[in-house]
């Protein structure tokens, strides 16, 4: 009788330990799930922020490209100004009429 009781106590004890193990591991499991959710939210917020920053970068890149176009156009404009000036100066130097030269002077003054 005592032996049966010992075996029973032994089994009940083991069962109790198994139950404790189950609760402890499920406690850790729950905590892990919460952490995972927090981690996912943090990751999502971070990735969204990075996306937002990348959009800003795209705007800046387009601004830089626009400015590059403007500077190239300005360089071309300067070349045109120089060419036009050369043509005009050649005409002025070839001009023989004082009247025309005087008119030109009045315009340029």
């Amino acid at each position, binding site marked *: 009788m005592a*032996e*049966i009781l*010992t*075996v029973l106590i*032994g*089994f009940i*004890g*083991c069962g109790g*330990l*198994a139950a*404790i*193990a189950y609760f*402890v*591991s499920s406690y*850790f*499991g729950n*905590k*892990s799930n919460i*952490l*995972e959710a927090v*981690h996912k939210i*943090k*990751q999502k917020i*971070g*990735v969204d*922020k*990075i996306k937002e*920053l*990348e959009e800003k*970068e795209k705007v*800046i*890149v387009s*601004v*830089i490209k626009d*400015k*590059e176009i*403007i*500077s190239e156009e*300005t*360089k071309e*404009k*300067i070349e045109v*100004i*120089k060419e036009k*000036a*050369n043509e*005009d*100066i*050649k005409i*002025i*130097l070839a*001009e*023989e*009429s*004082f009247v025309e*030269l005087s008119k*030109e*002077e009045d315009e*340029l*003054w």
Partner: protein
Amino acid sequence: MVVKKLFVIMLSILFLIVSCAPATFVPRQPPEIKFEKTPPYKLDLSSIVKPEKAVKIWMNKDFKVVPENEAKYLVLTNTEYAKYIAQLRTKKTFEAIIKEQEILINSYIDTINALKEYVAIERAKAEEYRTLWADSENAYRQEKYYNEMNNILQKSILSVIAIGSLVALIIAL
């Protein structure tokens, strides 16, 4: 026969579940941004025609040619006068070029400012990536710790159960 098939199917499913590794994490690919190098700017003004120095005729109040220091009037022929007008035209050209250069310089200043802003955003991005990295690392460490704790607990308790069962079995026998 049916039981055997069912057993094989169940075993295959179990094998699949156990052997399936989690999907590999592929990080976000940043957009490709490439800038061309800007060559140095050089303004060549030598191509603008420069007239020769004008030949001046100095005259006194009686309109007679005199040396420069005795002169009252300066007389220019149309060719010499044209040289002065050409210089005026050159002056106007330079004014126009200066205005265009202002635009050019400002476009470069805008580019520099935009690049400064870009650097600041890149820094913010690096900070954000750092936060994500730290967060992932911490999450991994936490998960690893819980996993190890879980393993230790489960192994300990299983060992206790096994030993307890053995002891109970020995006593029962």
